């Protein structure tokens, strides 16, 4: 299963195709440290004004900062505002 995924990623990279479209990988657009747009999320695990944990296809995405709030949250996309200090993945799926 993982080898098929790995091969797909490699093929996509070789062909120059976007992985976020092919594999549903999260796509993060960060504007400075005040605004963030995330596409292809799978749900929210934790939401406080200091930390937001989101489920993605490759693991849990952690956004830390202060005065964080979700401006818009749809089926696949999410838009946040606030002071963003750190973005990290908690557990990576084995590719």
């Amino acid at each position, binding site marked *: 299963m993982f080898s098929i995924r790995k091969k797909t990623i490699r093929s996509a990279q070789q062909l120059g195709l976007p992985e976020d479209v092919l594999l549903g990988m999260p796509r993060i657009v960060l504007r400075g440290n005040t605004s963030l747009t995330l596409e292809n*999320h799978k*749900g*929210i*695990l*934790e*939401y*406080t*004004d200091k930390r937001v944990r989101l489920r993605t296809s490759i693991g849990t995405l952690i956004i830390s900062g202060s005065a964080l*709030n*979700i*401006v*818009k*949250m*749809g*089926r696949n996309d999410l838009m946040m505002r606030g002071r963003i200090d750190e973005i990290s993945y908690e557990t990576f799926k084995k590719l």
Partner: protein
Amino acid sequence: MRTGSVRFIIEGLSLEKLMNHCVTHGIMLESVVRPTPRSICATINSRDYPIIREFAQTQGWKIQIGKITGLPYLKMFAWRRTALVCGVIVFLALAWYAGNCIWKIEITNAGPYEGEVRQVLKENDIHIGRFGLLLNIEELRLALENRLTGLSWVSVDKDGMRLKVYCVQGTPESTSYTNEYGDIVAARDGIIQSVRVSHGTSQVKYGEAVKKGQVIIKGEERAWNNEMKRVTAQGEVLARVWYSAEVIVPNTEIVTVPTGETYTRTTFYSPWFEYSKDSPCSFGTYDRDVTALQIGAILPLYMRTEVFEEVTEEPRLRNEADLRIESSTAALRLAHETAGLNKAIVDKWVEYSMMEDGIKAVATLEFLENIAE
């Protein structure tokens, strides 16, 4: 389609579940704020609110509506204030009705036919305040055109709350002074200056004096076989003609002589009331001097001061030179009006005669005009 939004606050544990539930059901959450760890405040489309409420009830969360906007708010607002909504509907209906009524009728260029135009409009039930939406403009225009033969063209137009009737008066056909044989007769007394004949035979020549009704162009022409045949005479005959007018101006005038008695009266007034502490003036004959002062700033309140000066009326003889100037000016003006103010005067003179009680001025104006018209 988004019809409105609902902002709600929900209290409970593990509220992330709610957000994930929204994600699963494709519900868009906006302005999600977490005021306390046990509450979330968010805005959703009003049509999605029942789903959220149901989910909150199953999870045992407490949900409260914060603010409603859009159509649901209007619906709720209207439901609570039935009388106001009914009033607004009635007002709008009345405004619409009033906006479609005729509040002004403008008749342009009808001249002497204006009265008849108004009569036709009245017969067609056109009046101020009539509901104009169902008004048949074309029918009205035809009614005006058929009734008023003196008008050559009529247009009727409804411009908002105004009904505009624009008329063009017909030019009367030029009248030839012809008798039953087709001859042209002189329209006035005069002395012939020039004759131009199109049809017929001239009966006058330069310098000849003609009387009103005299044949000046005869309606017959000599044919190729030397026979005389009847035609309708046509042509232009310019002649010197005279118009006279007389005016009598009395040689006395009434002048007022002050007796020295005066009376002042102050009145406060507005369009709705009038108050004065002074009694009305008791003088039989008086000259009155009025001054008004606005004292109410932006309000229509005024103070009127009337100064009455008692006078006696006495007749006084007028200067003869002034009488001559006044009478001659009036007589000349009257004669010119009789002839037509657009005509150019060739010559003019005034004769005066003294009368017992005044002066009589007889003004005579000479014009050059076509007496064959």
